[in-house]
Structures are given as C-alpha cells and as structure tokens.
C-alpha cells in the first residue's frame, strides 16, 4: 500500500519501526553486539599481545590491554624471529609470498577470463564436457592430486621452485575463476558481441576491446578472490616449494611452532598479524566485492 511512496522516497521499506527501546530491540541488539564482540575478540587479542613486553604477558592475561606499548615484537617478528633453521624473521616469507601471489593472480586471471570468454561466446564441440570436468575437479580433495603434480613438476624441472608453485596456483584457481568469468560474460547482452563481429573484430579483438573494458567489476572480484586465496594457502606452499622460497604462512607456522628456545608470545602474535594483514586490508577495503566473490562461487556451485 505504501509501496509507491516509499520507493519514491527511497527510504527503508516494510512496516513502521517500533519504539527504539522495545523489549524486542534490546534482545536483538544485545544478541548481535555480544556475537559481534566474540568475533572481534581474537583480532583484539592479537593486537594487544603483540604490543606487550614478555614480562607483562607473564603477569597478565591475553585480554588485558598493554600497560606499556612496545613495537619491538613487530620489529623482531619481521626481521629476527627464528624459523628453526634461519633467524631472519618473516620478511623473507613476505617477499616470497609477494613473488608467488602477483604472478599467480595475473596468470590465473588472464587464462580463466579468456577461457570463460571462449566458453560463453565461442562455444565449440566438447567445450562443455571439459568445463564440467573442470568444475567437478574443484571438489576433488587436493590430497588426491598432490603427488601426481609432484611428478609432473619434476618432469618439467619446476619442482621446488617459485615457478612450479605459481603454476599449481594457476591450475587450482581455474575452476572457480572460469565459472565466474563464464557466468559474467554470458550475462552480457549478446548484441554487443554480434555488433563487434559485424564490424569485423575477431576472437582476440572482441576480448580486448569489448569484453575486458566492460568487465572491470568481475576482474576486481576475481582479483580479491585470488589474492586472499593464494596468500592464505599453506598446503601447496609446504609441498611444492623449498625452504628458500616458503610463502609467509609456512614461515609463520615455522616461527610459532618451532620448539627451540623460550616461547615469545608477543613476537608470535606480531608475526600472526603481519601475515593476516594483506588479506585483512583487502577485505576491509573491498567490502561488498569480497562478499560477491564468495557468492559467485556459491550461486551455481
């Protein structure tokens, strides 16, 4: 009944809000605030712990705010913490992760977008069969393909190198990204494609001049998905790289869970935040784009 007026005002829809201090609201917001605090707590604990000195940690508890703020744990985590063999902190792992993530993201997005474009606009016989296999492949536990890939990489001389790891990330990013791009390109109006065809543009011409410029949002979604996914990977890093080029997650685990010496919890937590910083920054900056990336994978499975 108030549909027209509310859409004109562009205000909130639905029934009129009740009194703001009703029992329902107190219960609703009380529950939500409690839950939100539970989720936020670990991030708070990480920060607080990383800013304390060890004597303070031994006396207090994990939730107490720091009495004396020190940045020394951060410095130590970055450049001096020991990973069991060497003591040059997380910095090596960080740069390795950068060297792994950037090429993997670029390569996998280029391959998957061209592939999705071919699948949506230039279907050829058998294309759907390979695509179906690819999508089902996404459900196969990685453990099943772990060793065959070791052999393949050894055959082409990339086992234990950054290049091999980049290739593995590209391969395993392909199902979800291809699905993402195929669905997006299919949703674009076909007239555009036809008009470009009439104008004489070919496969690559249409891709670079029509499709890519029109699809920047989906490229952003794909980038968010891949950067966080590859940065957070642990299994492939352990299996396919060697200690010299371990990604950050692996060095982090080696620093924290190495058994020698006295445990320095503040350094450990500083290292943990440092490792989480890249995906967290992307997450907080990207907002709804991140959600779209997850939903894209879920919509059609």
């Amino acid at each position, binding site marked *: 009944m108030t549909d027209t007026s509310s859409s004109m005002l562009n205000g909130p829809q639905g029934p009129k809000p009740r009194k703001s201090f009703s029992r329902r609201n107190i219960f*609703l917001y009380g529950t939500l605030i409690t839950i939100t605090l539970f989720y936020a707590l670990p991030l708070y604990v990480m920060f607080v712990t990383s800013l304390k000195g060890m004597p303070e940690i031994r006396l207090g508890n994990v939730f107490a705010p720091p009495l004396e703020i020190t940045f020394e744990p951060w410095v130590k985590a970055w450049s001096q913490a020991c990973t069991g063999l060497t003591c040059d902190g997380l910095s090596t792992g960080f740069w390795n992760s950068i060297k792994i993530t950037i090429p993997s993201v670029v390569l996998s997005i280029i391959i998957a977008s061209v*592939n999705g474009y071919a699948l949506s606009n230039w279907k050829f016989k058998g294309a759907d069969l390979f695509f179906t296999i690819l999508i089902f492949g996404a459900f196969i536990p990685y453990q099943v393909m772990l060793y065959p890939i070791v052999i393949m990489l050894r055959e082409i001389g990339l086992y234990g190198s950054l290049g091999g790891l980049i290739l593995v990330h590209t391969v395993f990013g392909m199902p979800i990204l291809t699905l993402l791009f195929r669905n997006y390109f299919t949703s674009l109006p076909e007239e555009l494609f036809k008009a470009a065809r009439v104008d004489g543009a070919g496969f690559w011409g249409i891709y670079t001049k029509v499709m890519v410029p029109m699809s920047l949002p989906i490229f952003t979604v794909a980038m968010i998905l891949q950067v966080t996914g590859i940065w957070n990977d642990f299994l492939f890093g352990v299996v396919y790289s060697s200690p010299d080029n371990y990604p950050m997650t692996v060095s982090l685990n080696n620093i924290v869970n190495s058994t020698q010496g006295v445990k320095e919890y503040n350094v450990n937590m500083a290292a943990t935040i440092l490792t989480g910083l890249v995906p*967290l920054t992307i997450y907080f900056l990207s907002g709804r784009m991140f959600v779209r990336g997850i939903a894209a994978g879920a919509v059609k499975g």
Partner: protein
Amino acid sequence: MSSTRPNQLFRNKSAKIAAIPMIVTALFVFVGGTIWTVVYSFTSSGLLPRLRWVGLDQYERLWATRKWLVSIENLTIYGLCMLVLVFVIGFILAALIDQKIRFEDTIRTVILYPYALSFVVTGLVWQWILNPEFGVQKVVRGWGWESFTFDPLYTADIAIYGVLIAGIWQGSGLVMVLMLAGLRGIDQDVWKASRVDGIPTWKAYIFVIIPMMRPVFITTLVIVVTGIVKIYDLIVAQTGGGPGISTEVPAKYVYDMMFQANNLGQGFAASTMMLVTVALIVIPWAILEFGGSKRHD
C-alpha cells in the same frame, strides 16, 4: 557461431587455443592425476611410486592403523559438530541481521572478517587464546573461580573441540552471508501472507522460509562439507595433531605418509578414501541439481 564454414577442425581456432589450459588441466591434472593416485593405491610404493601390485593390502593396513582410525573419528566429530553449529549459527545470525537493523554493514563486516584470514592465522590465534596459562582459563580464575579448568588443547579427549571453536569462528561468517542472500531472495509477499494467517515468526521461519531456501541450503552444505574434508592447515597450526595423536585428521595423515614417512602407498590409499567420501556427497548432489531437468543455459 552459427555460420557454416568448411574446415571443422580449424573452425573457431582461437577459442580452441584459448581453451587449451582448461583442457590440459581437466584431463591431465584432474582426471589423470586422480586415476594415477587411485591406481597406485593398489601398489606397494614406498619412497618412490612403483607398480608392484599388492591388491587391497594398503587399505587393509590403513584401516588397521590407529592413527588413521583416530583421524576418521576426529573428522566425524569435527564434521558433524561443525555442520550443525555452523548452520544454526549462520542461519540465526542471518535472520537477526535480516530484521532491518542499524549498522548492518558493520556487524556483517565483523562477523565475516575471520573468513578472510588463513587457517594458519586462525589456528595460532586460538592456540594463544586457549592457552591455559594466559588465556581464558587464567582470566576466569582471576575472577575468583580458582578451580576453573578450560584447556581443551592440552587435554587429549577434548582437544578436537578446541579446534572446533576456531573452525566455527572462521567459517560461520560464510554461512551467514550465503543464508542472508537466500533470505533476501524471498518474496516479501510470503512474509505478508504468513502474517495475515497469524503464523508466529519462528514458525514461519521453520515451516515456510527454510523449505523455500532449500537450494541455498544444499549449495552451502556442499561447500561446507568439502571444506571440512580438506581440513589440514588449521590442525597443523593449532595443535600439530597433538596432544599425542588426538587431533589427527585424514588430510594430515596423507601428507605425513607421503612426505614424511616415505610411505607413498599408504598416502595414496588414504587420499583415495578422502575422494570416496567427497564423491558420496557430491555425486548425489550433482544428480539432484543437474540430472533431473536440463537447465536453460
């Protein structure tokens, strides 16, 4: 696309070239790799893969190994609890957030951020919070309850529940987001109709809304379950499989056998069992979803 040209193989050549990476991945890595592993699980491969057939020996040995049985038990406990709790929490959160609340974006952002973090980070934070000397146990004892004990990660019987807390913290945001999308997709008229009929809200959720959200539930289920079967990094970071072998999981068993114990055959057999588990869930789902009626495409 529909134009007729003479040469079949070279028709649409660029598209075929563009699809080569997909074809190679699908055939060689996914199909080839899987068949290879299944085949070699029937051999006595040790340090190196060798085609010396031993029939079902690897599987017999696998199911007689205590570490594997503990792994399966842990995965079952973790999986069932995770499934139930993540769905209950995720759905309730989505329903609460769907009440046209203020600060929706802030609340959603906070609940989902753990999902952006890696399992390694998740495991290490919770290892620290559950540390009995400094964490929750110490805080509660500090309040005056001197005998309070809460040290799941140091008690073999309940260690897996310590991992479960971390898993739920990390994963429930995802379910919340998917459920919220499902709730938002429901026609407002359904709510109006149920209100006219005088059905209480909670009843409307259980008997009207949830059945309508079946597709969302099923997709979420498949995503959550495949995630559960793969669980590895969380365990490595948070407990390392300990204390003892009390938090071992199948994925870790596979890694340990292949890359530490030089017992490839066991690794292959264990990973084949993981494949079977996933297949038992994915294949019925795929038949339900795509088998019955061909969708428009």
